[in-house]
């Protein structure tokens, strides 16, 4: 069945992809790899969640209401913020733990998305859900990984290196000096995946959004222009978000007397 230029996928052909997963699950089950269950649950979640999102987005595009778009964006942001704090092996205690993640996701995705939509893409309505929701979604998805990774490295390094940090404090180093190497290493950890993906984009892998646009019948040249903008926004978001999250966490692990407060980090 063909609508316009694009091949629409009927359910029975989608289930062919499910058959592949079933075979994989069966194989791992027989080899006792204990992967079948999480694999099946994740696949099921993927199908249900994306089907729901498809329905919701169809409705949102139809209504085209600014408040509704804002509401959806906020929900996405809060979930991403929670995800950042849940992914940590060592968590920052108290409300801060959640606040740090959400706040840096806000800067890395929200602010950068608005900039991209209003200043670069410039649709008729800059918040047009057809542009704003996919852009925000892509930014959230990618920067969340970077921010979570930076924070995870930071708290882990602080915990494992607490004696060295205190030894530096004893010699009169400021908290910033005592954390310098840890800050550098945790930012690198967060940003290297993005930097590496940008460096190989188009050669080894075709980025998802571009692929989608090409499949949807757009010219590859147009698709590439969008993809470039999105990747640059993602890189900027990852960088600012990681810097902010690490900065906020480093404020939190020292108190007003510049003592290292490892009691504010706890292991999950």
């Amino acid at each position, binding site marked *: 069945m063909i609508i316009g230029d694009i091949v629409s996928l009927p359910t029975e052909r989608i289930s062919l992809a499910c058959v592949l997963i079933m075979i994989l699950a069966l194989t791992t089950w027989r080899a006792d790899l204990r992967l079948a269950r999480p694999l099946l649950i994740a696949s099921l979640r993927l199908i249900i969640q994306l089907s729901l999102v498809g329905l919701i987005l169809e409705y949102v595009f139809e209504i085209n209401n600014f408040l509704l778009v804002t509401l959806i964006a906020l929900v996405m942001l809060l979930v991403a913020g929670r995800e950042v704090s849940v992914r940590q092996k060592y968590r920052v205690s108290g409300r801060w733990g959640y606040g740090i993640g959400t706040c840096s996701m806000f800067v890395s995705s929200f602010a950068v998305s608005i900039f991209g939509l209003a200043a670069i893409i410039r649709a008729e309505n800059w918040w047009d859900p057809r542009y704003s929701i996919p852009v925000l979604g892509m930014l959230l998805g990618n920067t969340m990984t970077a921010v979570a990774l930076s924070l995870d490295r930071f708290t882990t390094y602080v915990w494992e290196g607490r004696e060295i940090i205190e030894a*530096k*404090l004893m010699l009169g180093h400021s908290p910033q000096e005592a954390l310098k190497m840890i800050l550098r290493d945790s930012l690198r950890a967060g940003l290297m995946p993005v930097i590496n993906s940008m460096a190989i984009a188009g050669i080894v892998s075709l980025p998802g959004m571009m692929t989608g646009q090409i499949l949807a019948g757009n010219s590859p040249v147009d698709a590439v222009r969008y993809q470039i903008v999105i990747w640059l926004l993602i890189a900027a978001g990852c960088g600012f978000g990681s810097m902010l999250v690490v900065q906020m966490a480093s404020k939190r692990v020292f108190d007003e007397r510049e003592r290292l407060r490892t009691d504010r980090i706890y292991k999950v």
Partner: protein
Amino acid sequence: MNRILFFFVLKVDQLKFLDWHALSFDVDSGHCLGLMGRSGSGKTLLLRAIADLDVNEGKVSLNGQFRDDMSGREWRKKVGLLASESKWWHELVGQHFNSSALNLLSDLGFSDESVLSWKVSRLSSGEKQRLALARLLSRSPGALLLDEPTANLDSDSVSLVENVIRRYSEERSVPVIWVAHDELQLNRVSDIKMSMNEKKLDQYI
């Protein structure tokens, strides 16, 4: 003269940490307070509380300057805390020193400055301990909080370290708190002895 001497002092007033009794004592300039007590009695915690590394309450001052009137960093530059186990983070010894320590190094038994180009990973525990002392003293702290400074040393090095600390304290009128398990050593180096017992300090004669 007496009044000036009285002024140059490490004053600990109603220091409280964990669930301990409040502790108050003074260490005069150029004097050494020897601190004893069983393992786990809290000698290290007391030094850490004075250096403001752990949460604590109370007034602590050095030469009339109160801890609360300066940042934690400025305070810790003044009261040099030597931990019982030294930590090193750069590859080479010399990267941990920011000023010349040539005299200190020779006084501590290192024949020349070549030790600064040694790799930290190749140091023995005794070398680390002496170098950590040199690293601390080269920053000219105004008080010394020493946590078992000779624990890993042979007897020759012990007397080198004792001499270096005594000379530093006397020449610069610096108060010292010296934690040790060896009572004979404290008899040699300290002017007063105290012992940690049941979450409080007792005078020890």
